């Protein structure tokens, strides 16, 4: 099977998965206690007014009727209107998606930029001082809660130290977004990098002991070239899988970072819509999450196959 066929098959397999997730979430969110009309109107609205709003939103109809209408809309690509905002739920999600994508992609880049050189140092100086430092210090990033790390970074770089970065927010324009995303992405990367360092270090140690590396060294190839052309290329394969799994967790796991840095991402949208029982938005966000997770895992598998010629698409 070629790469194209494999990707095509995986994308087709995505459809029933996403449908299944959407159906499950529909029933789960509707069966959970809590009334969106009451939540949105607040405690000062009378039951009569709440009932009128529920009726206007069609929430007083039997669940199977609501489900049928929902599926009818989905078939036409319409995910419904947000009960809270009164605007298209799909539009809300798509508006916020770039923020979360920025965060995930930049975090992954930062994590790789931190992890690869440090893992290389640790592996080449195994069991010596640099190795111990590299293994111990990044655990600080793993051990401290992300919201605390974020606040500290904001305090240092946003308020003091020359106010190098904005204190939260998303900015405007490409460079504005990039400028605003550096601290949040760094916060996420500081939590992700220790995991990548440990994985890559272990792989590198194994690869550096292998025969083809010994052969390369014996041919007089420099250590830097050995590392770059032979060792890293092979060692990074398993780390790509680790990175992929963690990026999968990041999808939907960026809520705390979004809150600390006031980023209008879909993590924040998801949690607010759950608390508000904003059913259409919950369903829309879940759909997007499901697609993103499936795509991330697909990309991970494809990257794995591209890096390791022994892997066959079946």
């Amino acid at each position: 099977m070629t790469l194209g066929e494999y990707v095509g098959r995986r994308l087709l397999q995505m459809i029933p998965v996403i449908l299944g997730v959407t159906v499950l979430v529909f029933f789960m969110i509707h069966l959970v206690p809590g009334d969106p009309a009451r939540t949105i109107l607040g405690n000062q609205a009378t039951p009569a007014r709440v009932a009128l709003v529920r009726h206007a939103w069609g929430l007083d109809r039997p669940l199977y009727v609501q489900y049928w209408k929902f599926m009818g809309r989905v078939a036409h690509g319409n995910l419904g209107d947000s009960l809270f905002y009164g605007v298209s739920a799909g539009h809300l999600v798509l508006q916020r998606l770039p923020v979360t994508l920025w965060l995930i992609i930049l975090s992954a880049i930062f994590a790789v930029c931190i992890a690869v050189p440090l893992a290389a140092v640790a592996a080449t100086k195994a069991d010596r001082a640099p190795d111990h430092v590299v293994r111990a210090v990044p655990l600080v990033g793993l051990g401290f809660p992300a919201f605390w790390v974020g606040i500290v970074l904001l305090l240092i770089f946003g308020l003091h130290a020359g106010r190098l970065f904005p204190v939260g927010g998303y900015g405007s324009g490409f460079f504005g977004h990039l400028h605003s995303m550096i601290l949040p992405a760094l916060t996420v990367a500081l939590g992700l990098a220790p995991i990548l360092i440990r994985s890559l270090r272990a792989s590198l140690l194994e690869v550096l002991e292998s025969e083809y590396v010994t052969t390369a060294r014996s041919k007089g190839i420099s250590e830097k070239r050995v590392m770059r052309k032979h060792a890293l290329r092979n060692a990074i394969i398993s780390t790509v899988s680790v990175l992929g799994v963690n990026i999968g967790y990041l999808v939907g796991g960026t809520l705390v970072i979004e809150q600390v840095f006031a980023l209008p991402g879909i993590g924040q949208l998801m949690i607010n819509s759950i608390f508000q029982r904003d059913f259409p938005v919950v369903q829309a966000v879940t759909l997007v999450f499901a697609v993103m997770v499936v795509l991330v895992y697909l990309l991970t598998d494809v990257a794995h196959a591209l890096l390791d010629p022994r892997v066959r698409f079946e």
Partner: protein
Amino acid sequence: MKAGRPLLILALALLAAAGAAAAFAGGKGSSNSAATPQHGGSITIARIEDSQSFDKTNVFQNESIWLLEQVNEPLYTVTADGKGEKPWLATGYKVSNGGKTYTFTLRKGVKFSNGQPMTSADVKFSIDDARAQSKGWGYLDGAIKSISTDGPDKVVFHLKYQWAPFLADIALFANGIIPNHFAGQTRKQFYEHPIGTGPFMWDKRVVGQSVTFKRNPYYWQTGKPYLDSVTWTYVTDENTRALQLQGNQIQVDEFPPFNSITKLQHTPGVTMTLFPSTRTDYLDMQEKYPPLADVHVRRAISYAIDRQAIVKAVLFGFGKPANSFLPPQVPFYSPNAGGLQYNMAKAKAEMAKSKFPNGFKVTMLVGAGAQVEQAMGQILQASLKQLGIDVTFKQQDTSTEFQNIEKENYQLAFSYWTMDIADPDELVEFSVDPKGGGADSFYTSYNNPTVIALSHQAERTPSASKRAQLYTKIQQLAAQDAFQGFLYYSPFRYAYSDKLHGFFVYPLGNYHLEDAWLSK
């Protein structure tokens, strides 16, 4: 010469004293009376919730209401003390026909932000539309039978009956004046970017992020607003808002937590102000649960509430124990309402008189993750234990909590109220009239026919002194019945840049940004 010298010294001393007084007066509010307002500049207000909608007739959320009030204005508006109304888009009114006809004279020279002059047709349309909203605020205009116009600058309201809160109802934001027939747009289109007579007009909105209004060049108050634009952003984390304020990325931090007030009061460049509000917090007691149907039990619980401890623990001292279900900033609030205050001896005496002298088990709804409710719950649990009342917590998220309170599927729960009008009628009806208020007496099932009758009487009595007597009686009876535990009154908290002046929050929570200005 010798005689002139003491006079000179006295003059210099007076000047120095005046200078010192001015230096100490600054930073306590943004009134700086010595400074002249300057035009220009923009401010950003960061708040914990995003705006839901700008349909003034159907939105109940404060974070939407306080914004749309910058765009839409009513005929009369609430006074700064929250206790009355003053002319705004109208300059006055006459009452006739036994108090059932109100004729308002409109202010001359008022224009909408699209340049169109405001006329009586716009007023009639606006309020007819508002009162037709059965899902929204229409119920507050229930006393209006019809509206007619008498020329371009007079509007006549024909009431079904004498209605004492009428002026307060007219001053409600939902009765703000908009262009006739939504200026040719559909209702939905109009409320996506409403047009009004207010100091600011719609600029842009990024849903879930920010709302920006810009200066209305046609505003009727000459020279105002001073600011070029105002942006409201959505920042859920309180630490981030505080940092943004210190970094001058925002100029106003709305509702910093109580535990940060002291720090903010001492932060350079920041003014931290506590504005008196109409927010009152309660402990609801559902009378369908037999022990709580016993007035002696409810009185015992009310006596056992250590309000000072709650104010200290939850509000860090920045609040006051409540003595009535009405807050002090509402007209006809009575300081002699007689709300039961902490007294464990009296609490035990009441329990002894009740049908449950040995106590009972009770569940208390507490919001999951709601630190304030959890702290209050702990204090109450400890107090009630001394009466033999064994409190078990039932933690639920806000949506489920609200739903269970509405369905009266609770025994003890926390609730609160903030006023929408400068009249006690809305809250009184909601709290003590099970049918008339539509909420079974704030979902407590409290039913005292005498109190209900007094509340109806107070609605139809035009005399302010007579209403004061009626509402005092209502408050006293409600306190004696202890249908709720009146917990505390808390202020509106705003931290803002000391470059911002003229920023003042009214007891109803709204603010008139036409008066705000930035110093350079």
